[in-house]
Structure formats: structure tokens, C-alpha cells
């Protein structure tokens, strides 16, 4: 345990402070121990800390080729994910950063090959054709990954695709193979890849357009190898600087995510509506604040007892203030909704169903969103979503893209974390505690069909469309980080 944080309760801000002074390895260890002890928890602090840490890692790594950098990031990422698999934001950020690195590498290679006069050979159609252009335009700069979703993270292809040794006919020279920017996997690719060539057509795909490398096991990525070599041989663009820029962009994104989501507020909250929300989420508060500047409405706030009620009460009374909770320290301050003339009604979670008939809209903030459109949110969210469903009240979920995880929920029970039962029944009641099991789940899993709309920093989308956003943000080769227990 590094000594950097002695004397202060360790938290996100102390970690970020110590990051500057401590060396990388002990920073990683520190972060892991903070994660394990839940001293950094919830999506945003985890995402921030992960991005900052990896920024340091990248800056401190001496790299000879891109592959090394990727290996290094994956290695750190694996350790972080293993430390706290249920904080999916950690894994998400690691994957996003790996995506940045790969993108830089590919750009590098592309520039190189264009420079030497090699234009896409006929055998490999330009991937940009295969992509759906409007998507890459709409989404953020780091997302043009035309790939599909949801390979379980711990899936290993048992059967290797039978690769036949193809002999290139005379018409093809080595450039054809070189031009394959993202080498196309064999048709039965174990990945969700929609490689440049459509996955359906890949059954018949011309083997000439393929990478000569056989299906790599996930985790190791030999597929990137040719790029690395090419990068070496060309005069290098500064990969490291590019990656660092990419990570900084990601950090910027994390910063503005709430504001971007809040921009949609006026489209969804109308005058005199009654909105129900839950927990003290900063994203939701900002969203409501933005709407409150123009419109008058009523907020019914479920208090999220016993895990988040203190913060919820504080948010209602004081707004966002320094010191409301140790993770909130980096958050900016905001006024309470009541100060803007909004009526806020605080209710216990148990009253949700009773009041639902009067509610016009439910707004939830998730802990993480999964690839199939379902979500994890603070305990009580499922009750609210089901009550809303039975009253046909629309449920809107506000989630930054960083909460969006490519993991497929094979077993939803595994995803739920249990917290301190002492919050439900205090430890003073020893006699009572002896006789019963008390559990305190921190999260609820909410099925996709309970959600009507997701609002991300890229705009609104239906739960059934989330797979697309996942596909645009994560590389399929990165989905498996090798971490266990997160699916």
C-alpha cells in the first residue's frame, strides 16, 4: 500500500492527486486496492480514475511498436477488471482506450500505405464503403468501429476455423494482403466482427482478401502484428502522442457527458409534467435543471433507502455540494431544483407503485447498461420500471456512453452486488440479526423491455438500437479482456 494517501480518507480525488507524484506501478496497485475496498465506486469515478491511470500508463510506457502498447494496456486493464468486475465502467474505458490505440495504429498504417502509392486493391473493398456512413458521422470521434456486438467476454472458440492454405494466383501480389486493414476473419469468425466485408457474405468470401493469419485466440492479438511491423518500417507518426490525445478526448467526453445528455431535456420534459426519479444521480439532476430553466414541472423523488437516501436528501435540500459524498468531490456544484421553483416531492421507494398512476415520465440513471439493452441501476430501479410498465408510463434512461458495456448478461444474478446489510438492520439489533439473513443488494437488473428510451450523450435511442452504439465504440477483439466473473 503506497504511502501517498496517508492521513486522508482515500477517494477519487486523493487518488488523482497521488497519481501525479507516485510511479505508475504503485498507482496501479493503489487503484486496484481502492477498487477492491470500494473507496472508488460508481461508474463515473471509476471511469475517470481508469482513464487518468491509463493516461499515465501510456505516458510512462516506452513503446517500440503498437502491439506492445496494446499488450501493456490490456495487461493493466485485466488487473483492474479483475479487481472489481462489477464496475463495468472500468472495463469499458479500458476497451475504449484500446480502441483508440488500434485506431491510431490503423491510421498510421493507412497513411503509410497511401503515401507509398498503394491504394486499396480490388480484393479488399474499402471498409468505409461497408460502414454505414451516417453512424460514423453522428458518433464521437473515437467510435468509427464498424463492428457488431456481444461476444461474451470469456468466450474462446473451441474449434478453429478450418483454414485452407490458399495459394495466391499470379494476379495478386503481397499488397493485396497488406491492404487488409482490419484483417478479415474467416467466415465463421468467433467474433462479432462485421469486418469490412459483410459477415453474411463472408461465408463465400474470397480467401484472397483474407489475412493469412489464422483465427487468433482472443486475448492475444497477433492480428495486429502486421501493422506493428509496417509501422516500424515507415517513418513513424507519434503513436504515443496520438493515443494520449485520444485518451484526453475521452476524458473530455467524460466531463461533458452530463451536459450533452442534459441538452435533450427540453425535448422530453414538458410543462406541468410529473417526473419520477430515483437516487441522487448527477446526470439526472443536471437533466432536470436544464429543463427547469424553461419549464415548470413537478419531480417525485424516490429516496433509494438504504444505500443512497442520505445523498438523495442532501441533493434535494442543497443541490450538489462539495462533501456530499466522497466520490462527488470532483463534481461541480449545482443548486437544488427547489431553488428554481420546481416542486420536489420526496417519497419512500415503497410508494412508487401507488404514485405511478400520476406520473408522466420516469427518469432513471443506470449503473451500467448492457449490450442487449438491459441495465443495472441502484436497487429499487426494477420496482420503478415494472410499476411504470404496468401503468404504461414511459421510462427514460440517461446514460453516458461510458456506462455502455459490451458484455452480454448471461446470468443477471451474477451482476448484482450486495452491500452492507447493516444499513438494513443495524448491528445493534444483535438478537434479531442472529435469527435472520439480511441482504442488501446494491443494484437491480432491469430488462430491456421495461425501458422505452435511452438518452446517451449521442442522443436518444431505443433499447433495441443499443447494440449499434456498442458496436461503434468497442473493438470486438477487445471485448474479451480476460477478466473473469464480469458476465
Amino acid at each position: 500500500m503506497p504511502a501517498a494517501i496517508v492521513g486522508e480518507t482515500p477517494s477519487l480525488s486523493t487518488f488523482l492527486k497521488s497519481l501525479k507524484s507516485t510511479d505508475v506501478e504503485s498507482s496501479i496497485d493503489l487503484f486496484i486496492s481502492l477498487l477492491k475496498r470500494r473507496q472508488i465506486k460508481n461508474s463515473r469515478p471509476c471511469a475517470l480514475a481508469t482513464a487518468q491511470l491509463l493516461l499515465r500508463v501510456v505516458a510512462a510506457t516506452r513503446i517500440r511498436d503498437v502491439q506492445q502498447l496494446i499488450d501493456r494496456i490490456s495487461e493493466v486493464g485485466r488487473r483492474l477488471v479483475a479487481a472489481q468486475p462489477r464496475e463495468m465502467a472500468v472495463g469499458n474505458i479500458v476497451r475504449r482506450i484500446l480502441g483508440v490505440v488500434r485506431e491510431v495504429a490503423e491510421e498510421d498504417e493507412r497513411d503509410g500505405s497511401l503515401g507509398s502509392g498503394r491504394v486499396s486493391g480490388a480484393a479488399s473493398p474499402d471498409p468505409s464503403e461497408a460502414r454505414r456512413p451516417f453512424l460514423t458521422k453522428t458518433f464521437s470521434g473515437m467510435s468509427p468501429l464498424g463492428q457488431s456486438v456481444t461476444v461474451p467476454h470469456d468466450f474462446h472458440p473451441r474449434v478453429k476455423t478450418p483454414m485452407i492454405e490458399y495459394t495466391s494466383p499470379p494476379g495478386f501480389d503481397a499488397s493485396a494482403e497488406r491492404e487488409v486493414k482490419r484483417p478479415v476473419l474467416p467466415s465463421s469468425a468467433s467474433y462479432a466482427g462485421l469486418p469490412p466485408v459483410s459477415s453474411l457474405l463472408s461465408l463465400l468470401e474470397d480467401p484472397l482478401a483474407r489475412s493469412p493469419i489464422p483465427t487468433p485466440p482472443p486475448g492475444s492479438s497477433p492480428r495486429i502484428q502486421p501493422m506493428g511491423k509496417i509501422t516500424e518500417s515507415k517513418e513513424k507518426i507519434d503513436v504515443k502522442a496520438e493515443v494520449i490525445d485520444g485518451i484526453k478526448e475521452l476524458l473530455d467526453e467524460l466531463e461533458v457527458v452530463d451536459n450533452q445528455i442534459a441538452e435533450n431535456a427540453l425535448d422530453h420534459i414538458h410543462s406541468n409534467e410529473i417526473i419520477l426519479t430515483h437516487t441522487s444521480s448527477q446526470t439526472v439532476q443536471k437533466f432536470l435543471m436544464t429543463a427547469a430553466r424553461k419549464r415548470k414541472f413537478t419531480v417525485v423523488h424516490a429516496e433509494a433507502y438504504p444505500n443512497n437516501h442520505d445523498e438523495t436528501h442532501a441533493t434535494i435540500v442543497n443541490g450538489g455540494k462539495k462533501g456530499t459524498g466522497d466520490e462527488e468531490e470532483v463534481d461541480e456544484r449545482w443548486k437544488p431544483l427547489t431553488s428554481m421553483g420546481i416542486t420536489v416531492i420526496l417519497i419512500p421507494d415503497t410508494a412508487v407503485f401507488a404514485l405511478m398512476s400520476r406520473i408522466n415520465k420516469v427518469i432513471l440513471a443506470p449503473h451500467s447498461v448492457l449490450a442487449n439493452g438491459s441495465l443495472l441501476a441502484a436497487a429499487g430501479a426494477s420496482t420503478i420500471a415494472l410499476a411504470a410498465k404496468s401503468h404504461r408510463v414511459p421510462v427514460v434512461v440517461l446514460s453516458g456512453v461510458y456506462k455502455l458495456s459490451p458484455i452480454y448478461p448471461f446470468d443477471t444474478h451474477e451482476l448484482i452486488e450486495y452491500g452492507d446489510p447493516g444499513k438494513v438492520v443495524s448491528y445493534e439489533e444483535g438478537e434479531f440479526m442472529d435469527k435472520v439473513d439480511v441482504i442488501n443488494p446494491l443494484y437491480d437488473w432491469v430488462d430491456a423491455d421495461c425501458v422505452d428510451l435511452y438518452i446517451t450523450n449521442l442522443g436518444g435511442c431505443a433499447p433495441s438500437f443499443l447494440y449499434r452504439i456498442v458496436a461503434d465504440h468497442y473493438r470486438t477483439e477487445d471485448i474479451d479482456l480476460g477478466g473473469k466473473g464480469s458476465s
Partner: protein
Amino acid sequence: MFDIVGVYKRLLTEDEDITMPVAAIEALILAIADTPSSTVSETLDLVGKLTAELKRAIPNSISLSAGTDLFQQYLISNLQRPSSGNVDFEQMRAHLVGNGKVFVERAKAARETIAGLGRHFVRDGNVILTNGGSRVVGSMLREAAESSNGNHRGSTRFKVIWVLSSNSVSAAEDESAANIAALRERDIPVATIPSTAVAYCMDQVTQCFVGAEGVVENGGIVSRMGTYQIGMLAKAANKPFYVVSESHKFVRLYPINQQDLGIEQNVVDFRTAKGSVKDEDDARVGSDEGVADVEAQEKAPLSTALDDAVDYTPPHLISGIITESGVLLPSAVSEELIKIWF
């Protein structure tokens, strides 16, 4: 003229692991190899004709049309793309003819991939309901049964409820029997029930897996008779209902209802003392414009056997489609199809 129908049927009987779309593709490749042709449009014309012939001869052409459509699109996109300057026609033809077997191998490997992917859905203590008859589901369950250790005795303990249709003579039932035996061999308890007992069992079931003959554009599936009702019952009982299918079974079809599959099935056969009233119905329906359109295309021979009949399961009943490229939501199917067609 090349006997496409005969070759197709022979391929299906020779190799029991082959699926209909892949058999269709292979048959078409053999046809191209057999027929000398030197131009693109000649080849496309040939493929078009053979496809039509094949569809006409096979009562239920939905599944095979996935293969023929895929093949045609592949030819078109590769042969007629202006950028494909240096891939000349001969090369393409040689590639297709030379690698026919590879495609089949790939298609089979897809099944193994799905099995590897799908086994993660099977967890300790699960009770799985399947309607059998699907090779992919069978191999997935076998994979789950022996997953995670080498001695063919898996660590996952689950049970299987296998829905058998009443008539147990068809080839599909043989397949089911083999799968059931294989699972029991691996210490997985299997119960067989008639399809009438699905609702009765549904409360014990954790999740349902079914195979598909074709996955249609809106994410629904065309599958053997009875799948639709399993889907409805699973939905009613709030149980996940997964489709296991290779992505080459995606077919460009948008059925509106059960009768809208473009094939004729003599399932609902009204009879009076004078015999079937089918003919009168036909006359009446024939005047309907939409249906007339379908009929004009091709008059498929009646498939009388209920064993071979299929139904259409709409996408809202489906929790996910397990393909070799991952677990797709039904809404993702259209995108895959759009990619090859447009």
C-alpha cells in the same frame, strides 16, 4: 441442363450435417463448374434460372433461398463492382469452383462456433426446453454438457426438456433421438414431452432454445411447426426464448402473418362431407391482389406432411438470436441483411 434439384437433394442426403442454404450454395457452385460460361451476365442468368427451378421443385424453399440469395448477392457484388478491375471473371469462377468445399466447411464450423458461444447461456441448475430437430441446438447442448473439462463430463449440471412432435418417424426425430442419447450419455437428464405438454412444463423451465430454418428480415424466425406456440408460451411465462441459428440462414423475407410465408402448407384443411373445401377457398383468395401476386410467381407444390410444416415466430417473442457472430437482438437482423443487399 444441369439437374440442380437432384444435386441439391443428393447433397442433403449424402452429408447429414449440411444445412439447406449451404446445400443450395454448393449445388449452385457445382452447376457453375459444370456449365461453361464466360461472361458475368451469363453466369448470373444461369444462377437465376437454377435458383428459380430449385425453388419451384422444393416445397419449402425459405431456408434454401437464404443460401441462393446470399450466393447471388455475392456474385453480383463481386462481379459487377466497378472497382473490381483486376479481379476478372475467370479468377472469380475459379475461386468459387475451387473452394466449394471450403464454404461448406466454414458453414459447419459456424455451428461449432455457435456451440462454443451458446454454452455460456447454460448455467448450473438450468432447465432447458428445446424443440429439437435442430443440429445447432443439439451441438450447443452437447457442448454445454461437456464444457470446461476434457473428460466429456461437464461441470455444468442442467436438465433438458425435449419437445418431440407426436409423429416420430421423420428424419428430424431421428436426429432428436441421437441428440437425446448423446446428452443422456453425458449424464444430462433429458425428459421428452409431446408438444401439447409445453405449457404444462413451462413453469419448470429456465430458458428455451430453438433452431430456425430461416431468420427473416424483422428478426422473426421460420421454424418447424410448434415453435411459434413455444415462443408464445415462453413469453407468457416470462422465460427467455433464444434462437440458435447460423447467420447464413438469414433470409430476405418479411412475413406479416403465418400465411404470408410465400409457401403453401396444407395445415388448416377444412373439410365437409364432400371433401376438402380448399379449392373454393383458392378461387376466392385468388381474386385478392396481394396473394395473387405471390401465386403468380410460382405455384409451389403442396407440402402435405405436417412434419415438414413450418410456422413463423414474430420477433417480439425472441430474446436473442445466437449466431456465430455473437448474440444478436432481433432488430440487428435487418442490418445484416441490408449490408448484403444494399
